[in-house]
């Protein structure tokens, strides 16, 4: 029987397989950041263990870093201690670190691909659930907890029970004005936040093949919001073109050998998936969330749903609670929902293509009166590239704030936060209660919708301007 892409990558990394035990899987790349690593390094110290492969490990500062005045020490002493702890650990254990202010610094899931460290067929882990992002390259990539961070540091392996396989096939082409973010939000609304639990999702079909690498990263990034720890896409010419010439991509004869192998990384015709979902891309439209989990979304043209619309009692109760938290009335057209803050950034949508999409909408327009628009590049390199292209001038001329790189308002561990009751349209990945600041209300949107919303002051698509 044929194998799926994920099975091929998985099988190629089995160090040890014994009946009745989990497989021991080798990890090709371990990404580290300041939040989920301090207790893991402590564990190594307590047991006298070393980092087995510092040369397969890379660290960056992202979750806590401020996006203003980064030449100053971090004002919040607790954040500062956490960042300083990472610096101390990286130096003690010999791990390469890109600290605040460094040209290589940025969100962990933006810098890996940008450096060419994320390649097809690899296994990638990080103490962060959005590690699924790297699946865009045909890598098997998933988030882990701190115990597993310590395990990978010490052994460069992870005990794994082979997950089930799920196919999400997106046939046809996305209509004009519909982006990768709209697509993944629609997929999550369709299969639910638990739809991918226990599975690796392979995204396939014409609409997926038509996406750029940035778009593919956006889709794979939110696999975890559909319950799947990992999501991936078969590598193709788009992938190879993105990788070629990057700092850590293979070169010369090694490049040719690698590409030859990468071309074998696709699901066999006779492979069987445990679960399959088919979506028709041509039916999709700009999509936004109205609730407090990423599955609670609807097309922008829809109205806020009524809890009675849901037949499942748990879903109905969740909808009631979400509407109350979000301060929304059932039946209100989503286009009438007024927004206070627009956030563009995060590992979901903080890449150059996302910033270009925002600039295209904001060019020659102004941010609505009283609305705060925050544009946070995913990495220092993204920032530099955006400035070379003059995008920052478009943003500031429109009245948006152009900030330094980091996770920022995606999870509000730095000073960029919503206040209670404040409503955002955000290109990030989670609309959980309080995610962007205690009492804050989040609508997840694409970069294009975020930009149009910033201009209108209400949820809007570029076509509404």
């Amino acid at each position: 029987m044929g194998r799926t892409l994920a099975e091929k990558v998985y099988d190629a990394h089995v160090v040890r397989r014994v009946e009745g035990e989990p497989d021991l899987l080798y990890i090709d790349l371990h990404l580290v950041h300041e939040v989920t690593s301090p207790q893991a390094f402590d564990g190594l110290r307590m047991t006298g263990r070393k980092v087995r492969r510092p040369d397969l490990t890379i660290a960056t500062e992202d979750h806590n870093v401020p996006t203003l005045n980064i030449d100053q020490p971090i004002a919040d002493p607790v954040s500062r201690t956490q960042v300083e702890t990472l610096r101390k650990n990286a130096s003690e254990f010999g791990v390469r670190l890109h600290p605040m202010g460094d040209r290589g610094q940025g969100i962990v899931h933006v810098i890996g691909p940008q450096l060419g460290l994320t390649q097809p067929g690899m296994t990638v882990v990080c103490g962060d659930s959005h590690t699924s992002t790297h699946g865009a390259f045909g890598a098997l990539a998933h988030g882990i907890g701190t115990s597993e961070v310590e395990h990978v540091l010490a052994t460069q392996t992870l005990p794994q029970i082979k997950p089930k396989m799920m196919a999400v096939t997106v046939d046809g082409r996305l209509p004009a004005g519909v982006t990768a973010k709209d697509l993944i939000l629609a997929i999550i609304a369709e299969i639910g936040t638990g739809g991918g639990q226990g599975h690796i999702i392979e995204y396939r079909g014409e609409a997926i093949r038509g996406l750029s690498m940035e778009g593919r990263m956006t889709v794979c990034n939110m696999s975890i919001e559909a319950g799947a720890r990992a999501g991936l896409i078969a590598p193709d010419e788009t992938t190879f073109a993105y990788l070629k010439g990057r700092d850590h991509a293979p070169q010369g004869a090694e490049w040719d050998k690698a590409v030859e192998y990468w071309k074998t990384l696709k699901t066999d015709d006779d492979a069987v998936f445990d679960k399959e979902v088919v979506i028709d891309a041509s039916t999709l439209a700009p999509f936004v969330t109205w609730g407090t989990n990423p599955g609670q979304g609807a097309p922008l043209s829809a109205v806020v749903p009524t809890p009675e619309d849901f037949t499942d009692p748990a879903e109905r109760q969740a909808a009631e609670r979400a509407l109350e938290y979000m301060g929304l009335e059932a039946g209100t057209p989503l286009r009438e929902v007024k927004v206070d803050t627009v956030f563009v950034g995060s590992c979901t949508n903080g890449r150059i293509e996302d910033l270009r999409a925002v600039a295209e909408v904001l060019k020659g327009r102004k941010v609505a009166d009283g609305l705060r628009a925050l544009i946070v590049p995913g990495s220092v390199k993204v920032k530099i590239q955006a400035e070379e292209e003059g995008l920052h001038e478009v943003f500031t001329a429109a009245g948006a704030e152009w900030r330094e790189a980091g996770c920022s308002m995606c999870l509000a561990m730095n000073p960029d936060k919503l206040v209670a009751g404040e409503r955002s349209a955000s290109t990030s990945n989670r609309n959980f209660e309080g995610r962007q600041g205690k009492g804050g209300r989040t609508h997840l949107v694409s970069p294009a919708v975020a930009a149009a919303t910033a201009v209108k002051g209400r949820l809007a698509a570029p076509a509404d301007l």
Partner: protein
Amino acid sequence: MEKFTVHTGRAVPLRRSNVDTDQIIPAVWLKMVSRTGFDEGLFSVWREDPSFVLNDPAYAGASILVAGPDFGTGSSREHAVWALQQYGFRVVIAPRFGDIFRNNSTKMGLLPVILDEKIVEELQAAAEQDPTTEITVDLEAREVRCGELVASFDLDDYTRWRLMEGLDDIGLTLRHADDITSFEASRPAWLPVTQ
């Protein structure tokens, strides 16, 4: 970690679905670099509401959390597991769990038990009617018992053994260091290094 064989305790009924790890432990608590002190952060925003179930003195000292579907979705923060354990929970029962949370729980010895939604509701109702109701979670028999109710649950043999023995994974994996070394010798030369 502490061994888990059979645990009997009182239960807290948490009638909510999609309890994500941002609710279990809000991000502000993740800035700590220690492994202790997370009990205060457990559901810290929800606990500001006096009517939240954990604030009901009738449930003080309960050690089993019985929650709705998709408990522990979202962020990979293991701090969620530490917070639940440090508050006093040894078991979470729910119809479905977020994969990463569930995995993190088994690494730390917090037992995640998956039961049918109907049975979970029965357990919640029992704990609501009488907060002194005791539930027994028997890992050896893979069974949950409460009064007349007996429900079996699935957990793979290996994880069950590891939890019952209280073994941590790293020590077990390092027994196979030779296998890791020989695997490393076979890795293709084009694979990237960070240094």
